[in-house]
């Protein structure tokens, strides 16, 4: 059974990484084969968070997708982005910095794909008005999105998986990862002029075109905006106090989504169309496959192997997880990577005597996987979405064009994360 679980898992992983078939088909196909061959069963696959589908992850994503689907109808994001571009007074570098910061902050609270879907059209508009190439701007934004999404539990799907497996709270992410993300963003913004050197020349006559954009027109429904604002505040209060209230973040998100649906009166078809059902089913398939590895003892053996390789030295284990995660997340989507590695890290944490070191392992996994998503064009879903939008706008971004910049940013961000983890959890702890 162990051999079958490993072979099916690896085959599905190859299909997901190479995109020879649709990733949903690979994940659900792999899960179906494991169920059909009896490697796992319905009890383990559907009723156990450890060896099957983690419903907290699925429903947290579902709730947030519905909330974001309604929120994006308000036009608030477009308002803020255009307002910022006008405040930059048409300076391309200032526009890039402001838009990347907005993207990073929004990505901490919305999922990265949604943030890119919202920011990319505004970016194309501003660059079109300025008569400059939008590609460097889109690249900077998608990378900022992957960095910003690292800051919170809900910012990036890998973080949701990590939170569910580790039991770490929304506040734990705020306290431990947000400072790292703030430092990383400062460094990221500082290297932008160098990274995209030569991209900031503009015809002064075209600056007026941006200043004439009317951001107030982007707000479509002020009452809906107020309702969304109130519900979002309540949801984030729920996330922050979820341990106090004894409710899971998934329940908070579902309650928030339900409340917003009730008071917004948005038609069912409209908010349900914003739910990415393929992504949710992909997660379900992944969880069943990884669950089969847990059930057959493969994950435990893998954790022992990592433990032996690091000789029980926590710092080495943390740095290994950080580095390996950054590299592998660039090669395969960071979601399947984290879904697989989370149980491994969970096993490793059981061998740690110092709780600070256990937490450091989780933060290394989060930082490595999230920052590593920037390395290549296929490292994170947001990258693929940004490239697609650029292509439709007549500005194709090649795999290598993305990767040349992505590898540099991944290296820089990992070089920021490594001393942060060392200092905070080993030197100052």
């Amino acid at each position, binding site marked *: 059974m162990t051999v079958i679980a490993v072979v099916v898992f690896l085959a599905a992983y190859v299909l997901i990484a190479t995109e020879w078939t649709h990733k949903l088909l690979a994940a659900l196909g792999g899960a179906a084969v494991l169920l059909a061959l009896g490697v796992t069963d319905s009890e383990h696959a559907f009723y156990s968070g450890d060896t099957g589908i983690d419903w907290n992850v699925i429903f947290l994503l579902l709730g947030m997708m519905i909330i974001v689907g309604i929120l994006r109808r308000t036009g608030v994001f477009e308002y803020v982005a255009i307002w910022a571009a006008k405040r930059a007074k048409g300076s391309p570098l200032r526009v890039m910095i402001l838009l990347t910061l907005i993207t990073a902050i929004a990505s901490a609270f919305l999922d990265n794909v949604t943030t890119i879907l919202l920011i990319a*059209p505004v970016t194309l508009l501003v660059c079109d008005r300025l008569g400059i190439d939008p590609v460097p701007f889109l690249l900077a934004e998608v990378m900022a999105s992957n960095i910003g999404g690292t800051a919170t539990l809900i910012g990036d799907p890998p973080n949701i998986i990590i939170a569910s497996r580790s039991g770490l709270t929304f506040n734990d992410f705020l306290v431990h990862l947000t400072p790292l993300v703030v430092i990383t963003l400062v460094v990221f913004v500082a290297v932008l002029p160098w990274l995209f050197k030569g991209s900031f020349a503009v015809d002064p006559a075209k600056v007026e075109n941006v200043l*004439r954009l009317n951001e107030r027109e982007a707000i479509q429904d002020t009452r809906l905006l107020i309702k969304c604002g109130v519900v979002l505040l309540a949801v984030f209060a729920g996330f922050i106090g979820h341990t106090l209230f004894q409710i899971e973040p998934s329940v908070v998100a579902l309650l928030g989504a339900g409340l917003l649906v009730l008071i917004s009166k948005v038609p069912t078809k409209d908010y349900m169309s914003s739910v990415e059902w393929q992504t949710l089913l992909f997660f379900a398939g992944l969880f069943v496959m990884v669950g089969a590895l847990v059930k057959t003892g493969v994950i435990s053996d893998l954790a022992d192997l990592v433990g032996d390789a690091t000789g029980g030295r926590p710092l080495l284990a943390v740095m290994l997880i950080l580095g390996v995660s950054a590299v592998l997340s660039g090669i395969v989507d960071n979601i399947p990577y984290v879904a697989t590695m989370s149980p491994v890290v969970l096993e490793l944490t059981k061998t740690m005597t110092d709780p600070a070191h256990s937490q450091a392992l989780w933060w290394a996994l989060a930082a490595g996987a999230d920052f590593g998503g920037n390395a290549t064009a296929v490292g994170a879903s947001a990258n693929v979405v940004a490239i697609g*939008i650029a292509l439709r*706008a007549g500005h194709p971004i090649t795999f290598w064009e993305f990767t040349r910049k992505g590898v540099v940013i991944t290296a820089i961000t990992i070089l920021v994360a490594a001393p942060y983890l060392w200092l905070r959890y080993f030197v100052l702890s």
Partner: protein
Amino acid sequence: MAEDFPVVSLDSDAQDAVELLASRRLPGLIVVDPNGEPHSILPASQVVRFLVPSYVQEDPSLARVIDESLADRVADKLANVTVRQLLPSEPVELPIVNHDDTALEVAAIMARLRSPLVAVMKDKKILGAITASRLLELVTAPH
């Protein structure tokens, strides 16, 4: 049923083609290949789609933030463009019918391909075209 209909070639100037559409208020144009055989139908709605910037198609709320003077210049995109570039990037099935097809057959082709007109063929030659409004005129006429 078929009426005479203007045709344009793949390499015709887009500006000229669009002026033809506009001046005669046509629902679309028949596009022919270098051999004079029908290549595709260019619906007027496709031209409108071409003129709308991709970022507005991705996020229609952005149409409102652009001021009138900038919005009026959308037709500038037609400069130095050929009809070929106006056509959808993905090839679509050609809406053609035979000269002896019934009104229902014509309607079926129009409905299936969501085309505002179909080219009418006889022996690989274009006889003309049938527009949706012409078809409706025929089927609603008293017998």
